[in-house]
C-alpha cells in the first residue's frame, strides 16, 4: 500500500506545527530556565533564527529529491549496504525518540494527574491509540490533526491570555546578564527537542505530499508560529513563576495553569493544558512511530507496513518501560546525550546528504 496514500499541504503544515510544539511546550521552559536563567526567552529567539535556517535547508533537500523518502535517499546516495545501515540507525533513532516521548507522557500523568495508576498501563493505553492511528494510515492521522488542531490552539490561547495579568517583568531582570555561550546552549537544547527531530518528517513530506505551491513561505510561517508558541510559554512561565521556581519544576507550564486565578472566577484550569499537551504528544508520537514503521517495512521489503505496526508498537511500549529508570536520569540524559544524538540526525546527516548530492552532480556533469 505504499505510494497510494496522500496528504495535502495544509495537513503537513499542521503536522509540522504540532510536532514542533509537541513535547517542548512543557519541557523546554524548565530546562531553559536552568541553562540560560533570566535570558531563557532570548534562547528561544536565537533558537528560532537558527531553526528557520535548518528548516530551509531541509526544504532544499526535499526540492532536490521530490519523490524520495529517507530510505530511498539512503539507497540512492550511499548504496545498498551503507544505505541500509544508515536507515537502521534512523529507525533506532525514531524508536528511541518514540519511547522517550511515551515515557514523558506516562511520567507526566503519574506525577501530576493519576497518582494511583501504575505507569506501564498509561503507556499501554496511550500507545494502543497510536498503534491504531498508524494502522489506519497517515491520512487518518492527518485528518485527525485537522480536527483537533483548533482545540490545541484555543486551549493554549486561553491559558496564555489569562496569565498576562499576573506577569511581572521584574522577574526576568537583569536582561542579557548571562553570557552568550549559555544563551546558545539553551537555544541548542530547545532546537534538539523541537527542530532536529523534524528529520523524521522526511518519511512524510516530499513523497506523500503532491501539491507544492510556495512551500518555502508556508513552512517557514508554520515553523515560526510554532516557535512563537514555545516562546510565549517560556516567557510567561519565567515572568509569572520566576526563574528559580520555573526550573525547580519539571512541568512549569502545568504549574502556571494551576496558579492562574482571574478574580476568583476562573481558576484551576490546569487540565486544559494537560489536554492540549496530550493532543500534541499524540501527533508527535504518531509521526515518530509512523516513520519507524514505514522505514522498517521498506527495509524488510514486506508487503504492507500495517503488518508490522502492532508488533513494533509493543516493542515501543517495552522500550519505554526500560529507557528512563528515573526522571533524574531523564533530564541528565537529555542534557548530556540527547542534544548530540538528535543533532547528529538533524544537522550532520542532512549535511552528509547535501555533500553526497553535490558529489553526484559533479560526477554527472563530467
Amino acid at each position, binding site marked *: 500500500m505504499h505510494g497510494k496514500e496522500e496528504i495535502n499541504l495544509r495537513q503537513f503544515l499542521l503536522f509540522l506545527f504540532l510536532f514542533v510544539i509537541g513535547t517542548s511546550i512543557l519541557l523546554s521552559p524548565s530546562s531553559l530556565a536552568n541553562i540560560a536563567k533570566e535570558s531563557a526567552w532570548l534562547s528561544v529567539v536565537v533558537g528560532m533564527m537558527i531553526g528557520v535556517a535548518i528548516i530551509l535547508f531541509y526544504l532544499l533537500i526535499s526540492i532536490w529529491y521530490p519523490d524520495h523518502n529517507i530510505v530511498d535517499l539512503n539507497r540512492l546516495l550511499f548504496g545498498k549496504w551503507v544505505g541500509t545501515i544508515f536507515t537502521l540507525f534512523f529507525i533506532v533513532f525514531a524508536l*528511541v525518540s518514540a519511547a522517550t516521548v511515551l515515557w514523558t507522557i506516562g511520567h507526566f500523568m503519574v506525577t501530576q494527574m493519576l497518582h494511583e495508576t501504575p505507569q506501564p498501563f498509561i503507556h*499501554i493505553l496511550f500507545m494502543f491509540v497510536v498503534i491504531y492511528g498508524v494502522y489506519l494510515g497517515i491520512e487518518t492521522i492527518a485528518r485527525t490533526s485537522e480536527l483537533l488542531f483548533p482545540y490545541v490552539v484555543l486551549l493554549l490561547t486561553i491559558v496564555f491570555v489569562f496569565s498576562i495579568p499576573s506577569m511581572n517583568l521584574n522577574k526576568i531582570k537583569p536582561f542579557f546578564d548571562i553570557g552568550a555561550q549559555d544563551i546558545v546552549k539553551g537555544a541548542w537544547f530547545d532546537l534538539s527537542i523541537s527542530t532536529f527531530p523534524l528529520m523524521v518528517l522526511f518519511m512524510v513530506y516530499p513523497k506523500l505530499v503532491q501539491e507544492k505551491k510556495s512551500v518555502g513561505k508556508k513552512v517557514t510561517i508554520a515553523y515560526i508560529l510554532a516557535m512563537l508558541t514555545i516562546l510565549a510559554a517560556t516567557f510567561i512561565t519565567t515572568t509569572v513563576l520566576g526563574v528559580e521556581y520555573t526550573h525547580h519544576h519539571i512541568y512549569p507550564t502545568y504549574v502556571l495553569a494551576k496558579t492562574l486565578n482571574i478574580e476568583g472566577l476562573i481558576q484551576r484550569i490546569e487540565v486544559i493544558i494537560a489536554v492540549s499537551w496530550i493532543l500534541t504528544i499524540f501527533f508527535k508520537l504518531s509521526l515518530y512511530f509512523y516513520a519507524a514503521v514505514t522505514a522498517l517495512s521498506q527495509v524488510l521489503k514486506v508487503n504492507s507496513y500495517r*503488518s*508490522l505496526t502492532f*508488533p*513494533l508498537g*509493543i*516493542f515501543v511500549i517495552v522500550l519505554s518501560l*526500560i529507557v528512563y529508570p528515573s526522571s533524574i536520569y531523564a533530564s541528565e*540524559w537529555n542534557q548530556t546525550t540527547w542534544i548530540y544524538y538528535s543533532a547528529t540526525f538533524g544537522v550532520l546527516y542532512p549535511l552528509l546528504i547535501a555533500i553526497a548530492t553535490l558529489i553526484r552532480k559533479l560526477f554527472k556533469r563530467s
Partner: protein
Amino acid sequence: MWVILYGVILSISWIQIRALWKQSLKRDSFFYIFTMGLSLTILILSQLGLPIPNPLDGISIVYDPVHSLFQ
C-alpha cells in the same frame, strides 16, 4: 492486569497473523512473529525483574567523548 494485557496482545496477534497467512504473505507473517516474539521476550524479562541493558546507556557511551569536547 498483566494477564489481560497478554491475552489482548496474543488474541490481536492471532487474528492478524491468520489474516496474513490467508493472503499467503509468508514474509510478512514471518517478520510479524519475529518482532512480536522479540518484544514479548523483553516484556516478560522486564516483568520478571531481570536486568535488561538500556539502549540509552549505549548511546551515552558513544556520545560521551563529544560531550566532554563541548564542555
